[in-house]
Structure formats: C-alpha cells, structure tokens
C-alpha cells in the first residue's frame, strides 16, 4: 500500500466534480438529500460507466469469441480490452483474470476446482492440489461468508480439516497465533485483505509469505481492497484473489477471479459446458487454456465492458488519492463515533490501525435495524445487519451492527451528517425506552 501515505487527498473542487458524475447522488430520499454511506455494500456508478454499457449495447452488442461479422469482432475486442484494463488495475496479467458473476462465484470456482482435482480430475498436472484427510484449510474469524463457507464445504467434501485464526475480544485478528495454526498440513490459507466489518487492513504480503513458507496456497478476498487501495497482486504474491465489479463503480453481475497462471493452467474447471472447450466427443471433452477454461457459458459482456470503464474512471482519479481520501474520512468517522456516548465500534480502533473508510458500530440496547430506520428517515443510507459475517458478530457479542462506508465521492459533510444524526437516533430510542 505504498503511496497511500504520500498521496494528496481529494480537494473540495475535485470532490464536487466527482459527485457531479454520479446521477444518483442528486436523489432526495424521504425529503432529505441522499447521504449515501453504503458504498461498501454496493458502489454507485458514474455517468461514464453507465454510458459505456449503454453505448456498447446500442452500437456493438454481439456474441463474443465466435462469429465472423463486424459487430462480433468489435464486441470481442472490447470484452478482452476490459479484461486487460482490469488485469492492469490489480497488478495481474490478462490471462490470469477470469470473469465471474461476483466474488462469491470466484471463490467457489477455486474451491470447486480444487475439489475436482481432489476427485482426480485434471490428471497429473492437478495432483498437487488434491486434498484429503490430514490436510488442513485455514481461514479467519473475520471472513465474509463468501470466503468462509466455500472452504468449510471443500473441507467437508474432501475430508480435510477446516481451521481458523480467531479474533480477540476487540475483533482484532490473533495473528500471534498464526505460527501454531500454519503447518506443513496447511494446504490453503483463505483471508480477506480488508475486513468488511472492521475496515482493518491485513498485512497480505507478510501473511502470504508465511503461508508459502509452509507450502500453503493463498486465496485472498479483495472485495474491500480492489476498489479502495492500490492493489498489486503480483507483488503481494497471493495465489488466488476475488473481487466484485459492483463495489468498484461497475455493474452488478460481474466479478473476477485472479489466479496465478501456473494454477489456472493446471487446475480442472469448475463450471463446464459451452465456450470453454476445444474438442468434445460423446466420451469426454478437452478444455481451452485459461481464462476461457473457467468461463463456461455466455459471458456477462456488457457488464465486463462497463467494469473496464469503471477502472478507467478510478485510474483517472487515482486509487492512491482515493485511498488517502478514504483514510481521512475513516479517521473522521472513527473519531466522531468514539465521541458519541453508548457507541461501540466493532474492531480495533487504535491510532496505529490501518483502516479504510468504513466503521461498523453496536449500540447496546438499540437494534441496528431500528437505528438504520431512523437514519433512513433522514435520508442517510447505511448498512444494518451482520454484513455476511455472522461468526465475527457472534464473537463480539451481537447479532447485527450498523455500518457506514465511504468511497471516492463521499464528503466530510456526509460523514458529519451521519455523526450528527446518530446521537439523535440514540436519543429517540432511549426516550422510547
């Protein structure tokens, strides 16, 4: 994440220009100007991304990778061009980026590819990925369900043992226990780059090096880092990574799997069928090289192209500057929340904690759904619930929390609006009680 510390924050004028690109930010909600603080759940889209998708559909829409007509050639070129943009954006090579429907599908693609290798598919090249009794898969207690359940299920299917790195009472990962959990039995370590609940940034390069030292593969959930931090997957050294388009200004329905070339070349496919084969007989099939090997069926072409436009937009602003902007908003948010009576921030909040622009809170005695309802009545959109991280919430003694998450178009005033409404909401429910 070098560069984030030195990059300049976005100026007020730049912020105004950025905000003008997002049509939805002009909406009024329940009689108030929309204060959108749910970017971590799904990001809004700038006009440039919406236009790119519409322009493609109106002028070049066609089936990719087949057909000799002009539109098909243009569509294919644009579709693959988007792959190249996304690959460059995350520090990967083009053939290491597989389009998926979302990050969940990307992580399942890895889990099922390894599962298929464990069932003997993929032949000798895939033998090194086989899992069985005695092998271990390691995850962490802060994972989003998407980077948790596929591994629990893979362990159940193969007879491997599922283990996890726990958190402390504050919600910080107990990395001090990692040495006892990583061993020669560990075959895969799955963890998130940035927690979608606590905003904590994990030391990916260090954890990856430690996993590799015992021969384990690394699967990284990059959903909350790819949009928010400069990302160089080659430099981090991870074996697999997953991220979703709709969290980084792109459309829903498109995400990506990154896999190091050697893995994607050796692993058997997850989904099979059309568009991923070379030769098919009634006895079996041979598969295309990656990434097509992992892209069975008709692809989400217009969404991928729009994601390419989203990456262009992020590049034009500068992800290092977005990260600096968000870090400042994150500090403002946390400092403001710490000053409000009765609010408990989930996760570590010390000065030395590297975090992105999000914070989830628990207000003992007031349920997150009720809090969110009050905030919504003021036009403030936050996420309430367990944010697909039930184990972490349970460990921290709550079932649901209220999460505010910022992005490049979030203003300090919006953070302040939330910080001002929150005590009013708390007062409203305390008065009822």
């Amino acid at each position, binding site marked *: 994440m070098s560069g984030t510390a030195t990059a300049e924050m976005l100026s007020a004028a730049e912020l105004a220009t950025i905000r003008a690109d997002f049509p939805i930010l002009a909406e009024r909600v329940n009689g108030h100007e929309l204060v959108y603080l749910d970017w971590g759940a799904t990001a809004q889209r700038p006009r440039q991304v919406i236009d790119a998708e519409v322009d493609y559909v109106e002028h070049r829409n066609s089936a990719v990778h087949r057909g000799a007509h002009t539109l098909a050639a243009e569509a294919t070129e644009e579709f693959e061009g988007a792959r190249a943009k996304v690959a460059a954006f995350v520090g990967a090579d083009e053939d290491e980026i597989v389009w998926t429907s979302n990050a969940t599908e990307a992580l399942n693609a890895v889990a099922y590819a390894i599962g298929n290798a464990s069932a003997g598919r993929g032949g000798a090249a895939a033998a090194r990925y086989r899992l069985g009794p005695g092998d271990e898969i390691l995850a962490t207690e802060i994972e989003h369900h998407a980077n948790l359940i596929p591994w629990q299920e893979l362990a159940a299917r193969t007879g491997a043992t599922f283990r996890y790195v726990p958190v402390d009472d504050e919600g910080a990962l107990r990395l001090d226990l990692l040495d006892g959990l990583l061993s020669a039995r560990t075959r895969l370590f799955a963890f998130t780059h940035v927690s979608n609940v606590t905003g904590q940034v994990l030391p990916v390069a260090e954890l990856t090096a430690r996993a590799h030292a015992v021969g384990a593969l690394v699967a990284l959930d990059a959903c909350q880092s790819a949009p928010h931090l400069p990302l160089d997957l080659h430099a981090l050294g991870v074996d697999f990574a997953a991220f979703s388009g709709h969290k980084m200004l792109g459309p829903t329905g498109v995400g990506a799997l990154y896999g190091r070339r050697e893995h994607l070349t050796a692993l058997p496919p997850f989904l099979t069928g059309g568009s991923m084969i070379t030769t098919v007989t009634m006895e079996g099939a041979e598969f295309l090289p990656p990434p097509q090997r992992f892209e069975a069926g008709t692809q989400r072409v217009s969404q991928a192209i729009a994601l390419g436009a989203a990456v262009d937009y992020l590049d034009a602003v500068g992800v290092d500057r977005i990260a600096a902007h968000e870090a400042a908003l994150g500090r403002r948010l946390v400092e403001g929340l710490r000053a409000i009576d009765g609010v408990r921030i989930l996760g570590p909040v010390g000065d030395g904690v590297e975090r992105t622009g999000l914070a989830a809170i628990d207000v003992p005695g007031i*349920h*997150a759904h009720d809090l969110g309802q*009050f905030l919504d009545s003021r036009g403030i959109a936050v996420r309430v619930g367990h944010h697909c991280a039930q184990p972490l*919430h349970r460990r921290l003694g709550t*079932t649901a929390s209220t999460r505010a998450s910022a992005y490049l178009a979030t203003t300090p005033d919006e953070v302040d609006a939330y910080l001002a409404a929150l005590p009013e909401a708390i007062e409203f429910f305390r008065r*009822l009680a």
Partner: protein
Amino acid sequence: MNEVESLYQDIIVDHVKHPRRQGLRDGATVESHQLNPTCGDEITLQLVLDGDRIVDAAWTGRGCMVSQSSASILAEQLPGLTAAEAGERIESFRASMRSRGEIPVDEDLLGDAVALEGAAKFVARVKCAMLAWVAAEDALAKR
C-alpha cells in the same frame, strides 16, 4: 407524525418494555425457531395445545423492536384460539404486511397488531414483523 415515528408507536414500545408471555417453559406441545437471515433476529415460539385449541403460548428471542413487539403481541392473543382461528389471524396479518400499506391491519381481529401497520410500508421490516407469526404457523403445522 413522520414515518419513523409512526413505526414506533406507543403500543409497540409498551410491548418492548413489557413483553407478554416471554420466557420458554417446560411442557410445550409444539415449538418453532425462526431466524431472519438478514439481521440475525431470532424468535422461538412455544405452544401448549389441548386438542386443536391453544391453551398457552410462550416465546423468547432477540432482535429489533418490530420483531420483538410483534412476538409479544401475537403471544398475548394466541391462548384460547383454535388452530384454525390462529391460522386465520396469521393469514390476515400476512396479507396486510405484504400489501405495502394497501390493506389495513384488521384491528377487530388482530388487536394490538394494528400498531405494526407502519412496518408494512417498509419492505425491509416486513420480515421483522412476520417472524413470530411464521413461527406460530410452523409450530401449528407440527401438531
């Protein structure tokens, strides 16, 4: 009264502060546990049956004011009803909750549940309001 205040009416607040028939007991005939997967709200509802008639109801749970008050409101009115009568009330309440405010809650039939009418306007809260009622339906189906 704005919409958020209309959701948190006195009757709801009263049921949250003074929950009726809360706390599980031994000897239940049927029981159902329901979870709202989006927020983790939980309700466990128990019924004591004498033939087709509900003679006692008890519940426990945790969650937002809507789900918890709704459980209290329902548990208070179940004892004395036949399974068919309870089923009729559950159906009536569901129809109102799914109507986005088009079908008012039948106060003559459903009593305090009329206070939950505001939840029907908020799609995200309908599940909260319905949780205990789904538990009752499920418990009665186990008879």
